[in-house]
């Protein structure tokens, strides 16, 4: 059947702007790893829904603020991950843990702010939810209750598996010339694997999964937002790694875990030993930063060569990603305004569900 999305949905700047408002500024969006914010004043920075964000540990409590100084908009924190008190480098204003201006150097000599004015100077704060070691942020003033986006069961699954994360993480971002939706659809589409990754994914190809496409969806029933985010597993021969005796792995051995986190995350684990979070961070209609964070299960004995292990796996994951990128970038560059929509078969039911919810979200009036 025809997809509900037209080619325009993947190329139009106005649609992209609307997505930033209706999806990325309304839903809970994965923002980063709790494991890297365990120390006081550890922080991370991101841009979500077009807004610069900082998330920081204030004496044990994780909070999110707009990463823009109340004085003249300088970013308060710069690095992707770091550790530093919340203060501005431009004119030295510092902030309290509730985002109020704490001190202004030379306030009396140079600024002459009244106590009332000073009290009103503060950073916009955002809602956050911490699910295990995964931090989600919602930049809406009236955030959606999290259970409407992620079921209790799914949140529990994420809490459990992410509890196994090591606190050493290799991270990078790969600018890619395609719309973010193409990559989320691509990870839902298991049928591309034997064609796009014939070598890299050979051991993963599961005949049973391929022969078990669900029956076509009964049309009238409404798809819930929370049905788009779920976990699934499949059997897989996991290579024995020399370091695996030094970590506490998650779940049954020889299992491949995957978690689809709507709208833009795919989180996988190979054997509960290696974890990879891929996020498709929208930059423009035809540009997406694919953010990769990879870690092992937490160590029970120190692994001296851990950094070399992480680097080795990240390189192989990047080669897999490049196979997808070559395909999706080619697809994207061919899209045009009045082109025909996709034509889905039974196995692509999840792509249809995603499109249905997406259109609902895009039409919802504030």
């Amino acid at each position, binding site marked *: 059947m025809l997809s509900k999305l037209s080619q325009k949905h993947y190329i139009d700047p106005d649609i992209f702007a609307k997505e930033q408002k209706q999806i990325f500024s309304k839903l809970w969006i994965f923002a980063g790893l709790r494991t890297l914010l365990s120390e006081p004043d550890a922080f991370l920075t991101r841009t979500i829904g077009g807004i610069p964000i900082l998330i920081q540990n204030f004496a044990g409590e994780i909070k999110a603020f707009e990463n823009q100084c109340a004085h003249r908009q300088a970013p308060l924190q710069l690095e992707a991950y770091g550790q530093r008190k919340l203060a501005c480098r431009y004119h030295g204003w510092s902030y309290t843990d509730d985002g109020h201006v704490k001190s202004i150097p030379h306030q009396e000599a140079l600024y002459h702010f009244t106590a009332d004015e000073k009290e009103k100077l503060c950073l916009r704060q955002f809602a956050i939810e911490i699910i295990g070691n995964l931090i989600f942020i919602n930049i809406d003033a009236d955030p959606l209750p999290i259970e409407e986006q992620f079921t209790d069961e799914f949140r529990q699954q994420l809490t459990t598996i992410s509890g196994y994360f090591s606190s050493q993480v*290799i991270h990078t971002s790969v600018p890619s010339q395609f719309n973010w939706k193409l990559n989320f659809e691509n990870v839902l589409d298991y049928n591309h694997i034997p064609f796009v990754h014939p070598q890299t994914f050979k051991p993963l190809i599961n005949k049973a999964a391929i022969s078990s496409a669900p029956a076509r969806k009964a049309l009238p029933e409404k798809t819930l937002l929370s049905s788009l985010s779920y976990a699934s597993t499949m059997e897989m021969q996991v290579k024995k790694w020399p370091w695996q005796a030094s970590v506490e792995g998650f779940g049954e051995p020889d299992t491949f875990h995957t978690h689809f986190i709507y709208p833009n995350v795919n989180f996988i684990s190979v054997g509960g030993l290696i974890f990879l979070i891929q996020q498709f961070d929208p930059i423009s209609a035809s540009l997406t930063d694919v953010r990769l964070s990879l870690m092992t299960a937490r160590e029970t004995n120190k692994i001296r060569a851990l950094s070399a292990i992480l680097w080795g796996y990240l390189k192989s994951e990047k080669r897999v990603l490049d196979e997808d990128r070559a395909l999706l970038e080619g697809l994207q560059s061919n899209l045009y305004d009045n082109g025909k929509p996709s034509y889905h078969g039974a196995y692509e039911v999840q792509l249809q569900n995603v499109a249905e919810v997406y259109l609902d979200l895009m039409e919802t009036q504030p």
Partner: protein
Amino acid sequence: MTQPPDLVLIGCGIVFETIASTWPQLSQGERKLQLIRLDSTDDAANAVNEQLSLLNNTEIEIFAAIDQNALNFARLEIYGQARLLGLKSTTLIHPSAIIAPDSRIGENCWIGAGAIIASGASIGNNTLINTGARIDYGAQIAANCWVGSGASIGQYVKVGQHVVIGSDINLGANITVGRHCSIDMPGAYLTSLAEGTFIDSLFPSAVHIYTSKSANKTMPQTDITAKEASK
């Protein structure tokens, strides 16, 4: 006169093959060479443990020669295992290399053909300096590193442990490269790199390892409140 001990060369890869093929020149015909060639660098210490334990440390010296695999941890496995067994590891210097007399070079180091080690430079144990590389005045390269062919390390540069500097890379003077880094895209690097930074043609921008304890890669913190004008 005592005969110099024979050398047992263990490993695989570029440096292994280079040493094996230039041995007559390196030994000037005075030492015998025995090769233990590995098929793979995975779990290398276990692969050679039995052969190593049969060696007699009064008659031989060893040289662990695996390239930069796994940030030089693969080579360290063999070198470390040999040391545990009480074997002595040697350093090999190609006769065409130029070495300042007041430079310091550790053990299990290889200095390739045409390499230059300037005055005051130091090279830690188990570090390999490849063909034509240049280490400038006062530069310090820690243990378990790899400097590729034609690379240059500027004066007073500090390179931490387990760093890979690829071929044709130029590190500007006075910078610091933290431990566990790999720079493998030819070019000039003029600013310091934090621990766990990877620069590679596979990635369009630098890759970083973050850990909760060493996440502090920011500028030194200044205490702003203390500086506030107090009246």
